[in-house]
């Protein structure tokens, strides 16, 4: 195979097929991974993580108008005006959040007090769940520290299944009132 041909076939194979042709792969010393032959079943409509994120936004918008608030330019309003709108929104956001996501502290202690690291149990060695800050020794081994933030974890997320006819990109429908 000429380098030009090769390059083009590689280019188009990647562009349209998303994978190398077996021939090309072999030429480069890769062996195609035997594809698992799944039973011939219609794949469920693919939902991406983006859909879940949009759905969460849509819920908070529907129940509490959160997106409206975040996208609004509030610089010209007084604190009193913002406060009046937010109080209501806060109640509703809290209610919806509680309904679809169960949030719990990662480390359930009293903030501002010394807390032993083993209280964090399985999270003690997980840097994504427990962040050591301040004078951390070189080996990262500490017995504990002052709890600055309890952290939050989503213990459970229960978003309702989106009907297939629901446009997954819509955060809030436009409203048209017939007079």
């Amino acid at each position, binding site marked *: 195979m000429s380098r030009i041909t090769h390059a083009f076939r590689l280019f188009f194979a990647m562009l349209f097929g998303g994978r190398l042709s077996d021939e090309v792969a072999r030429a480069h010393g890769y062996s195609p991974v035997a594809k698992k032959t799944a039973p011939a079943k219609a794949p469920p409509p693919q939902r991406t993580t983006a859909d879940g994120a949009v759905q969460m936004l849509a819920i908070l918008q*529907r129940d509490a*108008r959160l997106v*409206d*608030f975040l*996208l*609004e330019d*509030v610089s010209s*309003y007084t604190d009193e*005006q*913002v406060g*009046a*709108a*937010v*109080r*209501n*929104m806060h109640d509703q956001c809290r209610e919806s959040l509680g309904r679809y996501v169960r949030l719990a502290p990662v480390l359930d202690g009293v903030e501002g007090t010394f807390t032993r690291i083993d209280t964090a149990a399985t999270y003690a060695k997980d840097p994504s769940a427990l962040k050591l800050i301040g004078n951390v020794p070189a080996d990262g081994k500490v017995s504990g520290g002052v709890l600055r933030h309890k952290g939050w974890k989503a213990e459970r997320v229960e978003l*309702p*299944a*989106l*009907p*297939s*006819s*629901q*446009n997954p990109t819509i955060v809030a429908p436009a*409203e048209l009132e017939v007079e």
Partner: protein
Amino acid sequence: MQPKYVVGIDLGTTNSGVAYAEPGSVTDPHQLPPVSLFAVPQLANPGEVRDEALLASSLYLAGPMDFPEGSTGLPWESAEDYVVGRLALTRGIESMGRLVTSAKSWLSHSGVDRTGPILPPNAPDGVPRISPVEASRRYLEHIRHAWDYKMPDAQFTEQNVLVTVPASFDAVARELTLKATEEAGYRNIVLLEEPQAAFYAWIERHPDWRERVHVGDLILVVDIGGGTTDFTLIAVTEENGALKLERVAVGEHILLGGDNIDLALARFVEQELASRNTKLDAMQLHALWQRCRVAKEKLFEEGSTEEEPVTIPGRGTALVGGTIRARLRRADVVRIVIDGFLPVVSSNEMPQRQRRVGLQEIGLPYAADPAITKHLARFLRQQASAAEHGSIRRSSSGFACPTHVLFNGGVLRSGIVRERILDVLNTWLDEEGMGRALALPGEDLMHAVARGAAYYGLARQGQGVRIRGGIARTYYVGIESAMPAVPGMPAPLKALTVAPFGMEEGSDVRLPQSEFGLIVGEPAEFRFFASAVRKNDPAGLMIEDIRGDLEELSPVEVNLPADDNAGQLIPVTLETVVTETGLLQLWCVARDGRRWKLEFNVREKVAA
């Protein structure tokens, strides 16, 4: 097969609740099986079915642009063209012409055809309307499916089911409720009055109730629901040394409830906003209505602030900029709710009667006088004319004097509302020279009726005490006097007592002394009357002057099938039966024993 559960259903004006108990779950005969609440799965949002403590008694007739396709499915086979429950309400507020609410109030409205497609009354042309009976049927059917979905090993139709109705529902409204349950596929149904159910719930919560009430006591049940107010008196009597409970009086149907109160607050705030040139549209007014309810409950809590902010978010994308702000002051809420709906009145002040206007918009016959205390005064005063009946504790003026008050319904969750009613009542009792009444502590005022209905289901099986009551009114058929016709004057009407007050379930009354001639093959119609006040009329009594206490109901009619002897006149007598279900039936009985049932004719408007 023996039913596993008893199921109590509170089919409410704005919300419906379900509770159940398992009679076989306890072996000790002195112990009562626990009553549990049944959370009803329903659509809360498109595509989201959620368990809720109550089923919103709302129905939305869905149009083609209402919901994304397939998003109104339920975990069971369900219709595509309507939605029941919470989603119906939230969507319906945005599109009122397709929303059916308060079907129960329509069910008791004798001025309309209750089996005809009349709801929603303001539906745009082309929207297929439904009847109040059909709306009730759909709520009941939803509950049946929800039960079968969550309790797959105990089919709903196999269980003992109790459905509650307001005590003030007349025989026609009861029959229509029963018709809705039958059409919803229910079997083994018993009807129960709501205030009685509330009292059963109290008994269920207080196993020591025999120490709390005594022989001679009179319990007033005040039930203020979302749409109706209901009064009932229950007397504590004695039989063979054991305490006995007897429902001795029920009030008239008052279409006045918590929704009216919250709406009054919303209207007040709306006026204040209008004075600042802020106008609200229908949807914002509804949002305001909900916010006022929340603010009212906060202001009525002990140690609350003097005022609560009420905010209505703007309609467009500008949330902060569009927010309408108002305040509800405690003083205003007290003035509107307490002084407006529960004014301090004397026990002789009667509510204003319904105004009669020649042309009236077809709508619900809301109470003309919002003063609930006046309705209560009237109810207690009315018992004077029934002086001989039952064991009602009375003052020398005949005024009924309760010793205890049991509150039920969402409005009465506020302590300040309960206190006002009790204060007014006690002022009256002081004037009558009688002892003061005590409040019976109730709990869970939103679910008490469903719980109590489940308890009654147990009581019917011998696991608990039953309140004796029977029918809550005296019923009459109208009979034209045999007099020479006078032009321009209708023949005077007399009324024959066919069912005396308190006639019990499973009993019957024959009236052999009055014979009517019915022509075979032609419908014969009888005018039908009821009275909640005349409690001493025995069956067979003829009342010469029917003006005053008697209230006309839908007529009853019978059509003797035309066989070979068409055109013949058959002499019949009337027989009244109160079924085990609690339903009043009238029969025509021929001399040879053949029987025909008199059916309510609800299709025709009653000329009152």
